[in-house]
């Protein structure tokens, strides 16, 4: 009984505080994780699986409620209805929907997808939810027993306090990092008139990339980020004719803070680093870019530096003047700050979820896993990557018509001798 009381409501975590404020009529900050099975999904069984799974995730299976001073999360009372898939993922989530349930479960033939409002959790937390949900589904459907490993949580256990904590508050340093940064180049294009989200998925052999990355003594993530930056650089050189108008190429690389701070939270706990190229200084070779990304990530993604970055955000949250103003004023101020600074500092986010590992018994049932980020509020792209079953996936989402960046990214991979299979939801 005490446990149930404890999980009646949650403050938004430090990173999540900006998300409801930056929500607009045309942009909701969502991401999706999905698992595609070898057989069609049984809706009845899935409904039961959702029902069994959500009590284990009180901070994620939640609705977004409004207080006088802050938003807060409240666990949903009823499991949400399972929705049908549209022609594109991450359809706009209105504030009204969030007040009822800030995540969605969507089924399309063999695929089970979960879409989260980013205030609930981040990619790592979302993946744990998806794995647990699919494990529950498979257990019910095939009457098998799936071990609770690789992030799968037991539905029989009660939620733990450390899973719902705001690890940002716990790990802030005493000094702040500066937020000053240059603005990045933004890719332009013709907006899709009906908010259609174009998804382009590249699949390639993870072994091949692994070997290429290890030849340069860097991680796969660093290597792919460098390839992406080179594609953006080439695209800018092609589109912008006047070298004086070149702007920095910057890619936001999210960093999962859980291993760094030894946290097991299921809330948001990630920060980022932004490697940067300045095309005004001349052309960059891939080796140069790899070097820049490798060292930037290496120097930034340390426990000490990250705690300093955390403090920058936590200090703002603790400002008395910000705390005592009513929510609607706060929203107004935060929206203005977000619009003027928020996403101008990078061309896109390139979020690598790494290797998606599953228990052997589950792998037999799951053909593929997908991870899709919604586009940025003011830039038309975002990109994610992950590896499942030795296949490395890079998935672009864009809300403009032209697939220019994808083409440039493909050309870079082709030049490296990597065979790529492309898939999309084009109309």
């Amino acid at each position, binding site marked *: 009984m005490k446990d149930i009381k404890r999980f009646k409501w949650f403050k938004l975590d430090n990173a999540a505080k900006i998300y409801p404020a930056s929500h607009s009529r045309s942009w909701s900050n969502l991401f999706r994780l999905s698992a595609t099975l070898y057989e069609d999904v049984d809706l009845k069984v899935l409904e039961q699986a959702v029902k069994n799974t959500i009590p284990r995730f009180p901070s994620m299976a939640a609705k977004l409620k409004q207080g006088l001073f802050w938003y807060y999360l409240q666990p949903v009372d009823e499991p949400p209805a399972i929705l*049908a898939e549209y*022609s594109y993922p991450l359809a706009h989530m209105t504030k009204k929907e969030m007040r009822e349930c800030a995540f969605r479960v969507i089924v399309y033939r063999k695929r089970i997808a979960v879409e989260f409002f980013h205030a609930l959790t981040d990619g790592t937390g979302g993946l744990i939810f998806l794995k647990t949900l699919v494990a529950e589904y498979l257990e019910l459907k095939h009457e098998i027993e799936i071990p609770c490993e690789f992030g799968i949580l037991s539905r029989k256990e009660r939620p733990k306090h450390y899973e719902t904590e705001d690890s940002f508050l716990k790990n802030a340093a005493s000094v702040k990092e500066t937020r000053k940064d240059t603005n990045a180049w933004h890719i332009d294009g013709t907006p899709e008139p009906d908010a259609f989200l174009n998804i382009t998925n590249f*699949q390639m052999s993870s072994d091949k990339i692994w070997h290429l990355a290890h030849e340069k003594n860097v991680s796969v993530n660093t290597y792919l980020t460098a390839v992406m930056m080179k594609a953006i650089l080439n695209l800018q050189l092609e589109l912008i004719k006047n070298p004086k108008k070149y702007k920095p190429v910057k890619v936001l690389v999210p960093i999962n803070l859980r291993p760094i701070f030894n946290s097991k939270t299921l809330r948001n706990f990630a920060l980022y680093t932004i490697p940067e190229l300045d095309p005004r200084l001349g052309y960059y070779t891939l080796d140069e870019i790899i070097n820049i990304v490798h060292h930037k990530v290496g120097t930034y993604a340390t426990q000490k530096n990250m705690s300093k970055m955390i403090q920058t955000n936590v200090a703002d949250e603790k400002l008395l003047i910000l705390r005592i103003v009513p929510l609607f004023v706060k929203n107004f101020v935060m929206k203005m700050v977000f619009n003027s600074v928020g996403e101008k500092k990078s061309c896109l986010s390139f979020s690598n979820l790494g290797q998606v590992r599953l228990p052997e018994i589950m792998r037999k049932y799951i053909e593929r896993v997908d991870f899709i980020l919604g586009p940025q509020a003011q830039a038309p792209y975002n990109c994610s990557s992950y590896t499942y079953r030795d296949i490395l996936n890079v998935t672009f989402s864009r809300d403009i018509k032209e697939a220019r960046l*994808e*083409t440039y990214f493909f050309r870079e991979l082709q030049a490296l001798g990597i065979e790529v299979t492309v898939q999309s939801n084009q109309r």
Partner: protein
Amino acid sequence: MYCANCGVKLADTEQRCPLCGTEAYHPDIERPEVDPLYPKDFVPKSVLSKTTIHIIIFTLFLIPIFVCLYADLYINRCITWSAYVSLSVSISYIIIVLPSWFRRPTPAVFVPLDFFLIALLLQYINYATGGDWFLTLAFPLITYLGIMVTAASVLLYYLKKGHLYVIGAFFIAMGFYMDIIELFLMVTFKVSFDGWSLYPMIPLVIIGLGMIAIAISRNAKAILARKLHF
């Protein structure tokens, strides 16, 4: 199967290349039927559809018309001044909002339509006020202006090059328009010629000729680029 244009390997779900749009077809390659990655043609309904927005704007335009008609009828027991308001608001709606109903509104239809409606409004005002200026002044002036603006907007819309020629010619035409205004004022109101129209006409014609000269001469363009760079 590989894209014949950009060389990327296409998954069996793809009928066209997602990167370059090239049709994925080869007579010798049979492709298995597979589910598309996402269902086709199933998009969420927008809360505020285009039709809803149009209905809202239409209603907003109707409000002043009804208010004025009601006030006029209530005070004067017949339609007097409210007719001007109603007709003006209706014509404004047609000029401003109506083109947005169409995906690609062409100026060849809408611009002459706008001038025709303005001519009708002027004709009504002339009739209602018992004036005698429509046929000898308003009609020729609005016709001339209508033809010029239609020609210029259609040419600017459809031509890909030579915009400077069109704008130059339009300036010259507007210069002569000043003279025509004075001429018809003389005819209609029996005033004497005092030549005021020459003052706007001369600079307009000079600007127009200058633009055409710049458009003809590459040299002039180069000089301008050099002298006016900033």
